[in-house]
């Protein structure tokens, strides 16, 4: 057979830049004001331009404009900025601690801080969040105590996941933030069920969920869009296209690189939005929420962004892409952009920013110090290994009781 094989008889895509290449992206053809904001009861077919284009609000001049401008107050924007800064500082601290063995593993939201924060701020408190590991920031919006987040990550006695899952697998029922699960994609289709339950109960609750560009290749993506459209679920379905799935470029997830348009044939209004533009994200999400809340069904959103850092603490992206590539991303940095806009509109200054940053820094540091009091992965104490046996079922059947006793015997010997 060997003779027949051509040199490259299969079409295998590649990433546009590999280590050693000069990084660079084509300039975006999209500007704020390009796209109209249709009525929320529009049909999917009226959103073609929204799906093929890019909703932006913040321009290169740091001004906001266009129909999609959500006209947030300065305080709201400062709150958003603060949450994003908090997340970045928090991530950096955790990452440092991971390097010292205080936690086993970590995943940052670096470069994507706006996504969960702007989107959650655009929702109501009763709405359900069904995140991946890349949306922990939503918890700040919902008021979660940072100490408790750290306790989870460092796997100590106070971890509310009780030492069962890896770090970053938060659960926070009080804030309607549903437990993160490692298998990618599963939450996307489940979220449709969460939303349908709200609908069934006749409650004004909307469910929002996210999936990565990579994970959108799972069957769950298709299930979600299909079930959501057929049963008109009050759900917001986001594909966070950060260009990478670990080392695999989005060219292996979509031939033409546009994820937003995939919602259209399902009859779901679909929008692509600049994921590093806090205002655009907020606005598109508020629009989608209104649709869901008014019984108009799902909205499909591609959040266009760039994974600025490594996939996780186990990853070394310099093996598969130029090290400085993220700094070339046309969408810039979400924190920088909101900060500059706030400065532009007069509500903010470099000094205020610096002060806020320092405040958060010490907040995070204080929270960290508080958290480690309850232990950390390097030194313990850990959650009791009794937690291996509890909550497997509502109450342990005999075989778990028996094994639990046996485990105790070994542990306590």
């Amino acid at each position, binding site marked *: 057979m060997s003779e027949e094989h051509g040199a490259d008889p299969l079409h295998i895509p590649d990433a546009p830049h590999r280590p050693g290449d000069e990084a660079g992206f084509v300039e975006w053809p999209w500007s704020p004001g390009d796209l109209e904001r249709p009525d929320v009861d529009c049909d999917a077919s009226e959103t073609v331009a929204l799906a093929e284009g890019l909703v932006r609000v913040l321009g290169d001049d740091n001004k906001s404009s266009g129909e999609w401008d959500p006209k947030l107050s300065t305080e709201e924007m400062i709150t958003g900025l603060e949450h994003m800064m908090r997340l970045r500082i928090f991530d950096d601290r955790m990452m440092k601690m991971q390097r010292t063995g205080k936690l086993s593993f970590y995943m940052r939201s670096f470069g994507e801080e706006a996504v969960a924060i702007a989107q959650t701020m655009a929702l109501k408190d009763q709405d359900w969040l069904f995140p991946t590991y890349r949306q922990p920031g939503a918890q700040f919006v919902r008021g979660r105590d940072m100490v408790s987040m750290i306790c989870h990550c460092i796997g100590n006695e106070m971890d509310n996941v009780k030492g069962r899952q890896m770090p970053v697998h938060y659960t*926070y029922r009080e804030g309607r933030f549903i437990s993160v699960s490692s298998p990618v994609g599963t939450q996307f289709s489940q979220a449709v069920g969460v939303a349908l339950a709200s609908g069934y109960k006749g409650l004004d609750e909307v469910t929002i969920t996210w999936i990565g560009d990579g994970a959108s290749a799972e069957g769950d993506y298709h299930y979600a869009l299909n079930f959501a459209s057929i049963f008109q679920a009050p759900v917001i379905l986001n594909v966070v296209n950060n260009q990478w799935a670990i080392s695999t470029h989005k060219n292996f997830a979509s031939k033409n690189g546009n994820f937003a348009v995939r919602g259209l044939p399902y009859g779901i209004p679909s929008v692509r939005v600049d994921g590093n533009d806090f205002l655009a994200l907020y606005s598109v999400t508020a629009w989608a929420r209104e649709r869901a809340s008014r019984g108009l069904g799902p909205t499909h959103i591609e959040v266009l962004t760039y994974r600025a850092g490594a996939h996780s603490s186990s990853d070394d992206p310099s093996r598969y892409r130029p090290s400085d590539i993220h700094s070339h991303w046309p969408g810039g940095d979400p924190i920088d952009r909101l900060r500059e806009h706030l400065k532009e509109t007069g509500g903010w200054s470099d000094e205020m920013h610096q002060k806020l940053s320092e405040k958060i820094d010490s907040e995070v540091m204080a929270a960290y110090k508080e958290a480690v009091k309850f232990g950390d992965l390097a030194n313990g104490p850990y959650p009791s290994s009794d937690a291996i046996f509890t909550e497997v079922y509502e109450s342990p059947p005999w075989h778990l009781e028996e094994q639990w006793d046996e485990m105790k015997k070994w542990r306590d010997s």
Partner: protein
Amino acid sequence: MPNMNMVESVNNALDTMLSRDNDVIMFGEDFGYFGGVFRTSDGLQDKHGKHRVFDSPLSEGGIAATAFGMGINGLRPVVEIQFADYIFPAYDQIVNEMAKVRHRSGGEFWCPVTIRTPAGGGIRGGHHHSQSPEAQFTHTPGLKVVYCSTPYNAKGLLISAIEDNDPVIFFEPKRCYRGPFYGDPHNVPTWSGHPEAEVPESHYSIPLGQARLALEGSQCTVISWGAMVHVCERAIAESGVSCDLIDLQTLVPWDREAVVKSIEKTGRCVIVHEAPKTSGFGAEMAASIQERCFWSLESPIERVTGWDTPFPHTTEWDYMPGPDRVAAAIAKTQED
């Protein structure tokens, strides 16, 4: 008390739970308008409304995922997988998600979903309408696994499954929907007149984890579940050996007390299931029994099972364990 076949008693259980609990919601392929390819949901949409009993897209993974989401958001979904052979596209959602969500979330979220599915052979279904994949679920902590065998226990167990706050995989032996099936395709009785087909109209439940002693005897313990329970009944009669016949009913958690008590009495054991032998749930039974009752056992535990091959179509009677094979195994346990 009315006589019901198993289609009717399952239907009645579903109806009972729809009537009692507004959080109960049901869907599946051809489940709503049509009433299911086996008719188990016949009339339920008309009675309870199409927002509570409806058709789903042809997507087992989507069905399981949607049920998961509804379950963690306060409903009590009961979904049907049209044939157990088609549960595998939903396997990830079941074993990685449903089974683990209570545990993984520190108890913050749980998933009271019941997945009903007709299983087993005997209807000339060939490879993909005959499988009995219970063992593939018994290995997953967090799931409960139930296999009914009669109209009476179908209703009582199904009500318990729906009321349970953990995910339950509920197998219905399709060969027994309309009659008890004793392993002889030429002699096919209906449920009419059968004592286990006397089914109360009202709500009742059979606790999960409890076995049923279908026959009582002294010389051998026969353990089975699903359609094979009836085959065992016939085999025991054929064998002339006095046997306990234990219908396990729930596989996870199984009723060890009942099993151990019986083995300590008889000292001999035969386990019978339709699924292939290797790593079938019979393996777990045998392993556990020898662990616990080693000193009581007077002969090897026998397993009579489907072969380690796909399920055939025309020759299914050479595949499924029949009364003769079971009777021979019972006899073998009596040898020494």
